[in-house]
């Protein structure tokens, strides 16, 4: 369900009644189902089924999204980092699980049962549908979480707890499972009753290994992810100081140290925070956001300096602490030969543009510096959005199609459509005259209408619009629309 959860988070369902969700990928000129939601599962859709068959089972209320295992794996790693709040030893369990070693930490949460409930509730608050279980071995926990959710078993109870589960729960080799099914062995309990000595020869050595690991006879371990270490640099003065020169010098020194730490790790800061330890009051934190990861000391100082100059240092500053809580990897590039001409003599254009955006945004405000993005919709006011550059996300792989261009869309769209009176020869015919800004304007030419239907799933009351491009006698070209069935006319834009 992990991939389904992620797909739902990326594209929230908008239809009513809710639609079934399938994730598919092509295979040998066929489109096969790779994951399906619970509703589709109840309707009989199986993994590996052809999409056409699944569509026949489900009906029209169906949404199909591409299956992206790489993105799912990356998201699982991110979720593992998030789960470090429950234990210092966490690892992703591909394709759809997390392993959390709660040895010792369950006492912090009073009991294993309470910890399991907490984990489940926290995942639910993130919008992730999850099932959990706790056991003394990894294999048993994996099996119980998927086939007996909510179970919490003690050591030496594994055999009893696993016995009713199907063979798939212990992740045996599929060929071994098929062979056991031919012998009418379908549960782990039936498998455990077979003579142990005969199993490796007929079903492979891995079968016994998995059984021993599940029962705790053989050790099984996992490699936990390493928690990210924050980049921090600190300095303390001998006593409180109110002089700006030593504070600035210390801050510059901390920036150099932080840049050195980030350089060694190959990362850059998306956020830096300078905390002033003040003698008479609470510490003061100065936080700066960056549009792209950056570790250029000169740039970081140019952003931090105005904030530091305006900061209230009270009766004096005793210490400074500079941290980069949000880090991101900086792509390294091959340096050219010393004798070769540099392609960008003033530095990398991406980095220079990011520094410019940071400078502008930190002075004018986060929302004053934006980047444009086209959206896959026909509604003109929603087809183009501006996102603050400090929070602009990367374009999705299924980005919007190329924009229609200047021939079909005006160069300027008004914030709100301006109501006008218009006279047309017929209800959907050419416009001959408009009254705008108190003036009667004859229309020199008018195009055929372009009909844009509303998005009924967002606003059922919205009317259909017929857009006309009209040229006035004074040379202006306007984008006019007639809204049905309200019979109203608006000017929405202009080829300015």
């Amino acid at each position, binding site marked *: 369900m992990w991939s389904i959860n992620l797909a739902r988070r990326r594209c929230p369902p908008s239809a009513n009644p809710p639609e079934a969700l399938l994730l598919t990928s092509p295979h040998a000129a066929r489109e096969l189902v790779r994951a399906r939601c619970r509703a589709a599962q109840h309707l009989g859709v199986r993994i590996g089924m052809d999409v056409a068959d699944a569509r026949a089972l489900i009906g029209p209320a169906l949404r199909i999204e591409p299956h992206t295992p790489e993105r799912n794996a990356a998201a699982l790693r991110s979720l593992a980092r998030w789960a470090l709040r429950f234990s210092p030893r966490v690892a992703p369990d591909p394709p759809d699980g997390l392993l959390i070693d709660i040895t010792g930490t369950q006492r912090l949460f009073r009991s294993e049962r309470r910890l399991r409930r907490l984990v489940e509730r926290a995942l639910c608050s993130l919008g992730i549908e999850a099932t959990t279980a706790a056991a003394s071995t990894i294999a048993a926990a994996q099996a119980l979480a998927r086939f007996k959710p909510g179970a919490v078993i003690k050591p030496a109870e594994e055999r009893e707890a696993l016995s009713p589960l199907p063979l798939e729960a212990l992740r045996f080799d599929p060929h071994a499972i098929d062979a056991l099914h031919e012998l009418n062995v379908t549960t782990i309990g039936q498998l455990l009753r077979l003579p142990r000595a005969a199993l490796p020869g007929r079903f492979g050595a891995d079968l016994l290994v998995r059984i021993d690991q599940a029962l705790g006879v053989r050790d099984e371990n996992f490699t936990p992810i390493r928690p990210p270490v924050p980049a921090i640099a600190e300095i303390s003065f001998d006593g409180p100081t109110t002089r700006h020169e030593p504070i600035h010098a210390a801050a510059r020194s901390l920036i150099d140290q932080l840049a050195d730490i980030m350089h060694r790790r190959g990362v850059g800061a998306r956020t830096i925070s300078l905390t002033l330890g003040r003698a008479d009051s609470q510490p003061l934190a100065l936080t700066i956001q960056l549009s792209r990861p950056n570790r250029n000391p000169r740039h970081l100082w140019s952003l931090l300096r105005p904030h530091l100059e305006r900061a209230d240092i009270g009766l004096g500053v005793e210490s400074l602490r500079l941290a980069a809580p949000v880090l991101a990897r900086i792509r390294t590039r091959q340096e050219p030969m010393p004798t070769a001409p540099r392609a960008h003599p003033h530095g990398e254009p991406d980095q220079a543009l990011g520094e410019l955006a940071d400078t502008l945004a930190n002075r004018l405000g986060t929302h004053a510096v934006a980047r444009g993005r*086209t959206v896959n919709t026909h509604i003109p006011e929603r087809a183009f959005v501006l996102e603050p550059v400090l929070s602009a996300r990367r374009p999705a792989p299924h980005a919007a199609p190329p924009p229609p*261009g200047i021939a079909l869309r005006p*160069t300027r769209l008004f914030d709100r459509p301006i109501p006008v009176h218009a006279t047309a020869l017929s209800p959907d015919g050419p416009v001959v005259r408009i009254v705008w800004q108190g003036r009667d304007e004859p229309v020199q030419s008018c195009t055929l209408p372009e009909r844009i239907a509303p998005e009924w799933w967002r606003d059922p009351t919205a009317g259909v619009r017929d857009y006309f491009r009209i*040229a006035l006698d004074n040379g202006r070209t306007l984008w006019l629309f007639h809204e049905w069935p309200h019979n109203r006319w608006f000017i929405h834009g202009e080829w300015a």
Partner: protein
Amino acid sequence: MPPPPDISAFKRFITAPEDCAALLSSLRSSPEPADIAGVITPLTVDASPRGIIRARPGVHEFLGVADTLPHAFWSPPIGMLLHIAQPDPHSNPTTIWIGRELWPYGPALSQLTPASLFIDAPDAATRLWAAETALRSNAVGLVIADGRAFTRPATQRLQLAASAANSICVLARPASEQRLLSAAASRWLICPAPPPTQGHGWSAQLLRCKGEQPAPHAPRVWRIVIEHETGAFRVSADVEHQPRPAALPALRESA
């Protein structure tokens, strides 16, 4: 109190007049902004507004469009700005749009470069700071700014920044500011000029181009039309409206 000027070179010239030739040659070889150098090159017959602007780092002004009409608000010539901003393979595609009035509607662009930034600056001082910062950053190919209420010192600051960074700044201003002094390298009057056939277009009249002298038959008025079929810009010299000798001297005085 401003620092005293460096007169060491002048002193050397007085004390050692025999170094006059060397001093003059060193002064001649030092880089100067184009508008101070006064190098006059002819405008060619096949020049176009985009070619003239793209070939000359500095500040260029577009005056117009719609405030010349009674009871009409200022509508900047965004289509003309889009024409100038069209990226070419030899230039930096990054464009900075400063001033909310100038922001183009995204779907009208043939391609929206991810490097384009839209800056919302509330007043003339902030717009000037943003434009100057962008020009000095070396990351930008073209800065397009709302130039309303910019004084001559403001345009001079931008001209110096653009000359130093070898970049281009286009200011859009209402036509009513045509008589204000400006240090722009070129000034253009943009008027709506729909073509006789289907389409929309503008006329661009070159009012002034510093350091340039038009060739005898070079045009000063161009028509820029958007072709409905392809959305491409078509530029043609307006042979019916050739240089107006009466208008140009007055405009030169204002500079």
